[in-house]
């Protein structure tokens, strides 16, 4: 075993010496052709020079993208009414657990959906306050939206009428930076989706 290691060390050492030799040559004679008068041509042909000229041009995207439809604009009059009837649910910091007042609000929303607006489809939007990381908050916002949706389902709202989306902290209801604003932003909203 020791012999093998010794042999390896020898091989490595030889390799290192050889490579060192090759490296020194490169360092001692860097860009040597350039000192000669004929250097200009070589330089002009260098790949870097080509890159500098060509790669700068990034075509501005020609693809036309349609703007995102606004939920509010597509909503019918009945839907607009429903939007007012469906109340927003609020959460504790870094939590998707439904408080007792959140469950009360969801019960009221469920009865609107089951008795008054029986044709409406609803998208539950999950939101967060600004304190967590934006990435984690996207996942947390979804957890909130799903906890609200699941509760509506246990109250009898068909799953086919419900969907979720998370906006994380991208769409605060209150742009402030204090506890009052944060409390308003940790929420699930109910938006008409049909």
């Amino acid at each position, binding site marked *: 075993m020791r012999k093998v290691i010794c042999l390896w060390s020898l091989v490595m050492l030889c*390799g*290192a010496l050889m*490579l*060192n030799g*090759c*490296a*020194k040559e*490169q*360092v001692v004679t*860097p*860009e040597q052709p*350039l*000192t000669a008068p004929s*250097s*200009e041509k070589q*330089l*002009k042909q*260098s790949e*870097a*020079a080509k*890159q*500098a*000229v060509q*790669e*700068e041009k*990034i*075509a*501005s*995207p*020609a*693809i036309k*993208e*349609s*703007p*995102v*439809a606004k939920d509010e604009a597509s909503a019918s009059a009945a839907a607009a009414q429903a939007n007012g009837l469906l109340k927003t649910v609020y959460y504790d910091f*870094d939590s998707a657990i439904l408080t007792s007042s959140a469950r009360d609000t969801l019960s009221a929303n469920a009865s609107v959906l089951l008795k008054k607006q029986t044709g409406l489809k609803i998208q539950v939007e999950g939101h967060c306050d600004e*304190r*967590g*990381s*934006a*990435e*984690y908050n*996207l*996942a*947390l916002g*979804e*957890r909130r939206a*799903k906890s609200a949706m699941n509760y509506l389902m246990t109250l009898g709202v068909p799953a086919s009428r419900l*969907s*979720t*989306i*998370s*906006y994380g902290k*991208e769409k605060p209801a209150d742009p402030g930076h204090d506890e009052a604003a944060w409390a308003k932003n940790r929420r699930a909203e109910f938006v008409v989706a049909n």
Partner: protein
Amino acid sequence: MKRCSAGIRVLIMSALLVAVICASPLILSGQQGYLEVSAPGNRQLQLAIAPPAALSGGVNQDVARAIIDVFKFDMTLAGPFSVSEPQVTESRSGIRPGDFDMASWRAAGTDLLIKSGYVVSGDSVSIEFRLYDVLTEKELAAKRYTGSKRDVRRVVHTFSDDIMSAMTGIRGPFTCKIAFVSTATRNKEIYLMDYDGQNIQRITKNGSINLYPDFSPNGRELIYTSYKKGNPDLYRRELASGAEARVTTARGTNITGAFAPDGNRIALSMSKDGNAEIYLLSKEGKQLSRLTNNDAIEIAPAWSPDAKQIAFVSDRLGKPQVYIMDSDGRNVRRLTTSGAYNVGPRWSPRGDKIAYCRQMGGGFQIFTINPDGTGDTQLTREGSNEHPRWSPDGRFIAFSSKRGGRESVYIMRSDGTGQTKISRGGTSDSSPVWSPRW
């Protein structure tokens, strides 16, 4: 004598480093301190920028100023250099070896000297650069680049990359771009800029929310999450053509996509099966495997440079922490053990560090940690700082900071020094990612 030793040290370093690179880039990626010219305690090398000379034709102040400005910015950020433009009177002037009087630069205390000359002809600009070790009077690098007037900054950045290559064996990242998210249009759109904040170009124009850009390893494509179709879906865009393809079609979050080092696969957090889990997809969107499976949130996958491991964020123990798993999902172990809330890991290109953010005192700070959990080091302290992303050479980290009020893109050296604001203007800029070599 002091200066002499510095100059020799640099030359020896170069020789050794080129040898190491010949030997194996993989070995290098695991080595510490190969940039020892910038190690603490070493004297900074005095780098002088000679006034750019008009080689033929007229003087062009704009070109000359751009050359000096770009070199000053790049070389100052680099770290091992103290950059100046000393007024030195040469008995003979010129930029080529032997054409000018090196002794006067030596007398001015210069270790390294950048000479440059330009020729402007219509819209075409040709610039010749030469880097000298003043003590040995050796030319360390020489290049000429030709382009249009609008390419001048890029051409100077290219020679800055060459200087880093000549000094350390590893090219600089100064010709790279930074992609980022900006609220300039009140929506969140993805933009591209030079690493120093110049030449801003808008990439997405869909009027929606676009998040978390990440480059393909060849720099030609960007992936990002967009709400343009009413759900946070992952998209892939070819930068040159602007062609865009939707990668995911499942409802739910499709976020924090990360291109694998092979450029063919994407690690992505998707919630299609109930809650946020990490999946491997082909870059066309075919699911290859599911890497995590539990009730917790799993997001923010970050590949090791050898693609064998993936760091990620999970709240399986309550609060988000950084974990590492093998890239087949096995052998999960917790990386961060200090701090209650750690997110946003990103593996360094050399493989020796993982940058991440820790929630502290109402904001976030950026740390680096070794993949074995040792060496946990805080890099930022001012304001709230997030989203660290390495430069392709591992020397620098781009990040976003709210220290100035609005969130802006900053860059720093990987040891936390040299923190510099890059984005300008009155917009809120976040989620920067440094491109591969452009």
